[in-house]
């Protein structure tokens, strides 16, 4: 009968202990930073730091496969999706520190401490008094780390594993269904676009800027197409159109030329 915690403490080599004491504060700092960070992106980055530290802990406890999969899946894929979404919110969105419910902050702190105490005591009771099982196959080297995980995943825990993958697939397909908007009128290919662009009455070239071919450089002056007609798209919705009189529109002979 050996206590699990004591065994772990006794077995830890110097290197392992050193890395633990370096990384544990960083992991905790990341967790605290996650709660305290005002910007959502900073919070997500803090969480990523904590996850990385956990991955290194897994590797230190001779579970390298789990550690690297944690980095690839959680830090690399899931946190990245979080970041994607958070970035699209805009970088100026910050948490509001305004207390909407009276006394909410005090109650939240109280209940938070209570929950932490409950969890800690429960975990302590569950872990203390545990005995170390006889060396499992992977510890003696009869089975590699990867093989042990594969065997557990695909024999003992096959059913839960399949259920979880099914649920995740359903969630992903459901999200697609919600986000999907059917295109009206079907897909238009390059050919349709080309036909539309060259249809009669449509000028296929790039549109001239406001004031091009005009006698005035005001933004209220419409652009003229090469054939002299007004380009409707150059008329601003906000600037009232200015109707020129015939005298105004006529050339002013500013270059000293006579017709």
């Amino acid at each position, binding site marked *: 009968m050996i206590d699990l915690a004591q065994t772990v403490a006794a077995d830890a080599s110097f290197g392992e202990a050193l890395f633990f004491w370096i990384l544990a504060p960083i992991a905790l700092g990341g967790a605290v930073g996650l709660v305290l960070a005002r910007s959502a*992106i900073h919070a997500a980055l803090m969480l990523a730091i904590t996850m990385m530290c956990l991955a290194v802990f897994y590797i230190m406890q001779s579970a*390298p496969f789990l550690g690297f999969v944690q*980095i*690839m899946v959680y830090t690399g894929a899931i946190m990245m999706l979080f*970041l994607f979404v958070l*970035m699209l919110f805009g970088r100026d969105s910050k948490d509001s520190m305004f207390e909407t419910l009276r006394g909410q902050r005090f109650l939240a702190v109280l209940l938070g401490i209570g929950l932490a105490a409950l969890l800690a005591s429960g975990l302590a009771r569950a872990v203390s008094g545990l005995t170390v099982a006889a060396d499992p196959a992977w510890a003696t080297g009869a089975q590699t780390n990867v093989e042990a995980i594969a065997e557990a995943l695909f024999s003992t825990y096959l059913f839960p594993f399949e259920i979880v993958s099914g649920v995740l697939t359903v969630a992903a397909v459901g999200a697609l269904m919600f986000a999907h908007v059917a295109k009206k009128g079907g897909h238009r290919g390059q050919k349709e676009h080309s036909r539309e662009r060259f249809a009669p009455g449509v000028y296929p070239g790039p549109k001239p800027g406001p004031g091009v071919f005009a006698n005035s450089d005001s933004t209220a002056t419409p652009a003229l197409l090469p054939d002299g007609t007004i380009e409707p798209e150059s008329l601003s919705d906000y600037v009232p159109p200015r109707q020129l009189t015939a005298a105004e529109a006529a050339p002013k002979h500013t270059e000293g030329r006579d017709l």
Partner: protein
Amino acid sequence: MNDPIWLMLVKGVLVFVVLVLLVLFTIWYERRVVAIMQVRPGPNRNGPFGLLQSLADGLKLAFKEDVMPRTADKVVFIAAPVIAVTCAFTAFSVIPFGPEVNVFGVETALQLTDFEVSVLVILACSALGVYGIVLAGWASGSAYSLLGALRAAAQVISYEIALGLAVLAVFFQSQLLSTGAIVEAQAEGLPLTIGSLELTLPGWYFIILAPSFVIFVIAMVGETNRAPFDLPEAESELVAGFATEYSSLKYASFFLAEYVNMVTMSALCVTLFLGGWAAPFPDAWWPAANEGFMPLIWFFAKVLAFLFFYVWLRGTLPRLRYDQFMRLGWKVLVPVSLVWLMVLAAMNIGLDAGNGLTTRIAFAGGAAIVVMALIFFWPSRKQYEEPAEPDAGMGGFPVPPLDLAVPPSPRALKELQPARAAAASDEDAAAATSEKGEA
């Protein structure tokens, strides 16, 4: 790996130095090879054959002014290039350069570190390298950078899946996840008997796992943001993508990371599919070729061949459109990889002599039938249908007719017949008021 600490330090420094030198060399190599392909000399001024050109460029870049945008998130803005470079360099630590050698009386492998699951280190590093890109785009505080970062990250993540699935086939075949062990597993030849002819093919995985090799090579180009998949930067189309706001040494770091990633991916492909440091000919021809420091030659020759391939692609292929690129990744590479993995699993069961004859036939035959069925019944590309009403132009596209008579240019007229041109231009002077040079 139980190396003394001094040896670990030496190896770590050597890997770093080799990577930096390879990057400097690769930039010069790329510019020269592309230049030769485009029939021009390329950089040839600084040092012999222009070899010091990239060093000069790097120094110049480092001494440029470092601009910090006013809207930037300072900490993240500085951390992003650091993340990119760190991940790029770390990934190279598990690449085996050669077999066990004797260094000052210590037996050690020519590899910084190796352990049970070392291939995953490279995959994890490339997964973390995306953070560098994404954070760079976000921290710049500019919409262009953010959009560039999202493009880049979506690309890298998509192609990482295809890359991972291609690597899975190697895990499958070798039942190993360690780079050094995978190289050694490929050393065994592949016996092949055709009639009375007995051959031993090299056991390199690019033969047995040919589909995975092809997918890996395509995904590797997408993963490293290189032409024809260089959509995040696309020099001729975008400004600089996620690196728009970066300057000086930080900007250089992103390109350092990109070239290091190129070298790492080439080295990974050589390790997984092309026999790693093994000599590219049978052992019997020259037994000493695979001992001592000799394999370094084969390893670097293979890596350089891959880098040449990268440059060749850049010099040959036009850039893909973004939607076509994503379609290739998600609708071709990923499904093909998945089907190929299933087939590989079935074939392995079918070819395993330990199973009963019925099982073997059922699995091997079933796999073959599934592949055949997929090839035969795959919906073919939609054929072009003749439109009901004929278009004016060629093959349906509205282009000018072939017998179009182009009117003579007014300028040519003016040069040939000044008097007539003046008269002609007077007529439309009212319409063309912008022409000022006449009269």
